[in-house]
């Protein structure tokens, strides 16, 4: 992201637009058969429109002028039949297009959503939720409008226009050429309009993006604005962007306002030509009166869609903008899937960090040359200061990110070769903040493992001491989760998180211990549950409670991204180094703590 993006947008030329249009149209490809049917109906419908003036011609020439009331009745009946048929076709066609459009809209939305699920965590780290949200909701909607109101209608219009030109030539070539005399002017007006509108719409699009950004910024920063008492300044920013957008839209409004009446005028000019010159031919007998009447109607039918073209152009323009954004998101690379996936199956649960370094996009290293190994079945605690890189260890094992240097081995297999999903399915993960999804308690424990029976869920919950409070809920295991679990206490959420992790019977557990304090009773419950959970499995706990740490087989002390010490509790104590001091400080209350400022 940088300043460049808007300038690039401004110069993005015709080529980009054509490629984009191609991609937008490709959304229709899977529905080619259905589309073909729609066009067939469109063709027939255009036919009914084309026939009407011709029937009027026949009625005038053969029956009215000839004084034949019976024949007239027949023609009128045919006329009405054609009308009803045309109505039915147009109704069916409109429904089919809408069905198609909604289908495409649905497919695109679901496809986008699925794509988003597969994006790497780094994408979510840097993209505000609102922006991604707009892609799936409003942008997709605009594209739908293009495909239905725009693309299909334009094809229908073109079919009708070509049909009118051909039919006019077939009925009377002299009158036809007379009517076509205004065509060059029409072409000139259209080209002129397109040139003006193209630049205008682009400007409108840019100022609109600007306005949207300023508006959302104003909402995001409202607290700051208020405490700085700068409402006037914030308002001024909105007003400027708003006025710039207004100015841009007025330019396109002017273009449309001129184009509309100009096209209407040209249509009337064609009628005037038909009446003046054509009239002379009628009097001379070279052309029938019926033909003249029919031609006047054809001219009207010809100019109506041309007039609407300007409106469709506007739709197409905004859809292009939306398309650019949607395809931009679809082009964002997903989480990498290893080319030749290898999985350690069955998983024993051995984890090795081999000189692992890691840093975010543009930051200082979070982990630097970190090496350690965890044997199958071992219970390891990771301790260290906040921001020292402990949580990153968990994120790397879950493959939210990959190491910048070095490698992580799972049962001897480099994690880069293991599909992220495979890992996450097999690792029990207890996050710091437990996130409850919509659904029941049982759903939340079962999560992605649909094969787990209700029986098993109850067993698991009993093991982690969650059974008691769940059964006390109205509905028990079928109790719905409201407001993302806001009604549960911290301790209850913790137990549920344990249950969720245990349900799949994982070989390897990663726990990011919650920092929030709970009462001592809950604390005891959590400890019991944790013992039950960790028994017989490999576990790596990002630990905040010293009691958790002491029970571990081995303790890794990580500071500023490096391993400073490791060993069992007893070993580390005996060594009398960093961990020993840490322990000392935690477990010898009452002693005077020297002033914190003793830092050199």
């Amino acid at each position, binding site marked *: *992201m940088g300043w460049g993006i808007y300038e690039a947008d401004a110069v993005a030329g015709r080529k980009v637009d054509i490629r984009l249009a191609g991609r937008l149209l490709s959304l229709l490809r899977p529905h080619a058969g259905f589309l073909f049917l729609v066009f067939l109906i469109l063709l027939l419908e255009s036919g009914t429109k084309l026939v009407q003036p011709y029937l009027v011609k026949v009625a005038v020439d053969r*029956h*009215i002028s000839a004084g034949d009331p019976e024949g007239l009745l027949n023609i009128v009946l045919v*006329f*009405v039949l054609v*009308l009803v048929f045309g*109505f039915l076709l*147009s109704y069916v066609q*409109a429904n089919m297009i809408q*069905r198609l459009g909604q289908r495409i809209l649905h497919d695109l939305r679901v496809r986008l959503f699925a794509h*988003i*699920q597969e994006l790497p965590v780094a994408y979510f780290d840097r993209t505000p939720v*609102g922006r991604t949200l707009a892609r799936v*909701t409003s942008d997709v909607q605009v594209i739908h409008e293009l495909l239905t109101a725009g693309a299909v209608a334009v094809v229908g219009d073109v079919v009708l226009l070509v049909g009118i030109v051909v039919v006019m030539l077939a009925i009377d070539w002299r009158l036809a050429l007379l009517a076509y005399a205004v065509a060059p002017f029409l072409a000139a007006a259209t080209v002129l309009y397109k040139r003006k509108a193209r630049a205008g719409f682009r400007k409108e699009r840019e100022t609109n993006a600007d306005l949207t*950004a300023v*508006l959302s910024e104003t*909402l*995001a920063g*409202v*607290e*700051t604005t*208020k*405490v*700085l*008492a700068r409402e006037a300044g914030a*308002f001024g920013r*909105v*007003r400027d962007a*708003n006025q710039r957008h207004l100015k841009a839209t007025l330019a396109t*409004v*002017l273009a449309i306002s001129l184009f509309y*009446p100009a096209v*209407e*005028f040209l249509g*009337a*000019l064609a009628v*005037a030509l038909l*009446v*003046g010159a054509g009239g002379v031919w*009628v009097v001379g007998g070279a052309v029938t009166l019926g033909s003249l*009447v029919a031609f*006047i109607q054809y001219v*009207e039918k010809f100019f109506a869609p041309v007039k609407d073209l300007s409106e469709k152009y506007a739709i197409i323009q905004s859809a292009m903008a939306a398309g650019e954004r949607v395809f931009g998101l679809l082009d964002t690379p997903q989480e990498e899937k290893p080319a030749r996936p290898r999985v350690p199956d069955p998983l024993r649960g051995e984890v090795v960090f081999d000189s692992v370094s890691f840093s975010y996009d543009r*930051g200082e290293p979070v982990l630097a040359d970190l090496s350690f190994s965890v044997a199958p079945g071992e219970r390891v605690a990771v301790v260290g200061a906040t921001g020292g890189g402990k949580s990153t260890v968990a994120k790397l094992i879950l493959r*939210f990110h990959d190491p910048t240097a070095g490698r992580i081995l799972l049962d001897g297999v480099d994690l880069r070769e293991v599909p992220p999903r495979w890992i*996450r399915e097999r690792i029990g*993960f207890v*996050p710091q903040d437990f996130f409850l*999804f919509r659904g029941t308690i049982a759903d939340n424990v079962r999560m992605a493992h649909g094969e787990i029976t209700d029986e098993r869920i109850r067993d698991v919950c009993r093991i982690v001491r969650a059974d008691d409070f769940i059964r006390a809920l109205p509905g028990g295991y079928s109790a719905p989760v409201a407001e*993302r679990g806001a009604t549960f206490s911290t301790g209850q959420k913790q137990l549920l998180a344990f249950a969720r992790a245990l349900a799949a019977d994982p070989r390897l557990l990663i726990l990011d211990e919650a920092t929030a*304090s709970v009462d001592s009773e809950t604390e005891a419950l959590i400890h019991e549950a944790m013992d039950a959970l960790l028994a017989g499995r490999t576990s790596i706990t990002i630990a905040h409670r010293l009691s958790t740490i002491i029970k571990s087989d081995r303790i890794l002390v990580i*500071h500023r991204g490096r391993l400073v010490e490791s060993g069992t509790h007893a070993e580390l104590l005996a060594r009398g180094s*960093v961990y020993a*001091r*840490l322990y000392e*400080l935690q477990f010898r*209350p009452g002693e005077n*703590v020297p002033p*914190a*400022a003793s830092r050199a």
Partner: protein
Amino acid sequence: MILSTIRWLLRELPGLKRTLFLGAAASLVGSAFAVAAPLALRAAIDRMTGGGLDGAAMLKALAALAAVIALLALGEGVFRFSARWLLVSQARIQEHAVRERMVRRLLGLPLSFFHRSPSGDLMARLTNDPSSLQHLIGVGMLGLSNTVLVFAMSVAMMAVLSPSLALMVLVPFPFIAVMINRVGKSVYARFRAVQDHYGVLTDRVQENLSGIRVVKAMVRERAEEEEFAALSREYMRRSLLLTRAQAAVIPGIGLLAGLGLGMILYVGGRMVISGSLTLGTFVAFNAYLAMLVWPAVSLGWVLNLVQRAAVSLERIREVEAEAAEETDEGGEPFRQGDIDVSHLTFAYPGAASCALSDVTLSIPAGKTIGLVGPTGSGKTTFVRLILRLYDVPAGSIRVGKTDLGRISRSSLRAEAAVVSQEPFLYSDTLAANISFGREDAGPEEIEEAALLAGLKPDLETFPKGLETVVGERGVTLSGGQRQRAALARALVRRPRLLILDDPFSALDAETEEAILARLREEVGRLKTPGNGGENGTTVILVAHRVSAVRACDWICVFDGGTIAARGTHEELLGRDGFYRDMARRQQIEENLGIRD
């Protein structure tokens, strides 16, 4: 509903009435030209079929009539252009005016409003809703005036030309009216149903995006996709119900009007055969009927616009109906003085439990007080209340004997400055951001503030120093850089009350210490004469590190919305409790640090 929408527009939007009138007048003249054209056509055809003119005279007559048709069209074009330009440009102007008016309103609403309104929804109200009003005022009103005028005039002309035929042709039109009315109602209901579900869909995506890391860790992607697909399918179903109702309208109107055409063809044709109608009149009738069809079609479309606009207006008015923060009139100016808080209890609107309960404390003017405590213990709420971002019971907070509720907000906020943990910067230059609270600040002052805030080393890495654009369109600042920029923004205001709400969480302890030391010096110098300013600046410092609050005159420990302990650093260290635990924990961290 339609009338009340239009009435609101006319009442609330200045200048609209006049433009609507002018636009309708232009549309009237344009329509008159349009309706006159078939008369010329009729004359021409009657000349052609009537005979009685010799070649040259005929040629002349037809040429003259053709010229008349062209001129009428020119006149029509000029006035149609005027009408369109007047109405549509006015609509755009009003759309933008409504947006500005809403933003002005929004900025005056209390913070509690923004905490309960999802910003996505507010954005929709600021963007889509004014634009649907614009559609109604512009193309809607244009269509409506053209429709009504052309309709009335063509019917009048038909009645003059042949009353009996006119009556017959008009037979289908009452059916059209009934149909539009019927369909209109179900369209409105179905439209609402679609809009509502759109909200559900949006909400679902938002939840998914917010919890995406958990979704991934739990391998919930498939389940999420399935749930989303089901919601999306439901949206499709509702949309199709809506379009099914709409799909019949326009072709249906076309059909009914077309039946009128058939009627002319047959009845009019017979009248021509029997000699009671000229062929010219017959053709003119055809032209008039064609003029009727389009208005009838566009009426359905205008109705749709009106319905959408009515829904939008409802949403706009919901925002406008929100009660603004009380005005400042009659408020007393902020005077520097001791801040006395007594028995302050506060709960956020709609929250079940209190964020603060029975807090009593006194902050002497010019002193620096530290607030510590676990997350969620009420520290941030406390400073929000001091700033009157939420209202508190009368008497619970006083500044120099004056009740906080009586001090004008603007004066309070002009004298106070806040730096929060996650400060917000605008997409603008750093200099503009720093001087955002004080546009009159000179470049030296800005520079000095940046220096004080410890922003100097960062500036050297930026392409244009203080003129670097930051935020979404520019350089992305790190959390620490943003905090320092916000501190500079606060300092440039030379505040009498400086609130630092954990502003250095993203910095390491050394940097924090250095900035605080400079800050203490600066605050010591911030004494201004008058209004109690000679007492210096009062500082409230919320922090998570003992090292940050050590030097404070006084430290309060918050816990669960109450003050658990208070005293100086040394006093608190001497007692069991949160403060000493915190000091010890940080001591450990520091000791660990000694190793590298």
